[in-house]
């Protein structure tokens, strides 16, 4: 892998589901991988809290070296129709999914700018492109991540840093157990996706071969948003 010496990858929400598959895949690619979780993982932080994120990054730098690959995967859902949604539900989901990505990017960029090399991959969602009733908060956060992705790409394009997004569709994780059959009906591919298939896309975006792929959104959804 092309990561400069001493640099590692940080995967937020990397203890289970898609995040765990991404962490495994990047390890297999030869990267030093650190997982960050609210209560699990190698380091703990509430990504929605900028101070907590800054402390976690300081810890990671001390223990593992600079963060030159960042995968913003941490996310939460608090579904409900907008007409009944409480402000706290809206704010919590925006905090974790969108603000969390920004706080981690803000920290990671310091390391990446110093190295003049970096890879940021934001795990968005198919709902950023194709609205789901009951997910106004989640959809807005995930769509915000796509805009954030493109802006960071433009700002950093000359510094050897890329920022791309992946939009998974219906993926087999704890979150979709029991509802997969219902969700499956709308998927043109006729099956749900595997976390490893999302991880493969992330692996590509982190690779040296993707150095000129910047500001892109890569759908891994069996044509759900097509």
């Amino acid at each position: 892998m092309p990561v400069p010496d001493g640099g590692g990858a940080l995967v937020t929400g990397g203890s289970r589901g898609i995040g765990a598959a991404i962490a495994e895949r990047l390890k297999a690619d030869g990267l030093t991988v650190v997982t960050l979780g609210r209560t699990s993982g190698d380091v703990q932080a509430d990504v929605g809290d900028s101070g907590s994120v800054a402390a976690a990054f300081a810890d990671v730098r001390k223990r593992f070296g600079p963060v030159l690959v960042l995968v913003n995967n941490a996310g939460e859902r608090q579904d409900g129709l907008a007409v009944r949604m409480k402000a706290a539900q809206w704010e919590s989901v925006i905090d974790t999914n969108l603000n969390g990505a920004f706080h981690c990017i803000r920290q990671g960029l310091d390391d990446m700018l110093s190295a003049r090399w970096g890879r940021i991959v934001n795990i968005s969602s198919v709902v950023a492109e194709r609205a789901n009733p009951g997910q106004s908060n989640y959809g807005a956060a995930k769509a915000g991540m796509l805009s954030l992705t493109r802006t960071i790409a433009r700002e950093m394009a000359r510094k050897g840093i890329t920022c791309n997004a992946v939009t998974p569709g219906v993926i087999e994780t704890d979150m979709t157990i029991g509802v997969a059959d219902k969700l499956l009906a709308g998927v043109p591919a006729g099956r749900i996706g595997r976390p490893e298939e999302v991880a493969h896309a992330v692996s590509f975006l982190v690779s040296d071969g993707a150095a000129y792929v910047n500001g892109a959104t890569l759908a891994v959804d069996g044509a759900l948003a097509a």
Partner: protein
Amino acid sequence: MADVTENDILEEIRDQLEAIKVPGAKEAKPENTWSELDVDSLDLVELVKALEDRFDITISDDDLKPIESVGDAIALTMRLSEAEEGAPA
């Protein structure tokens, strides 16, 4: 702002370049060009904003066009700062 020196401005420029992780920021010299320092147009926007805030000046786009080096930025900031000083209150 009274008594701004070229050294004050150089130090501010170095601090700002350091903040955006420009390699060798702390040793930047007046003769260094932006291109040598790998400072791009977006970095310059940040730098100009910082100089405006710190030295209480306004740098127009026209002022900025011929600025190609640290020394150019120092000279411009000195000129605008002195003009500001001489302006009626």
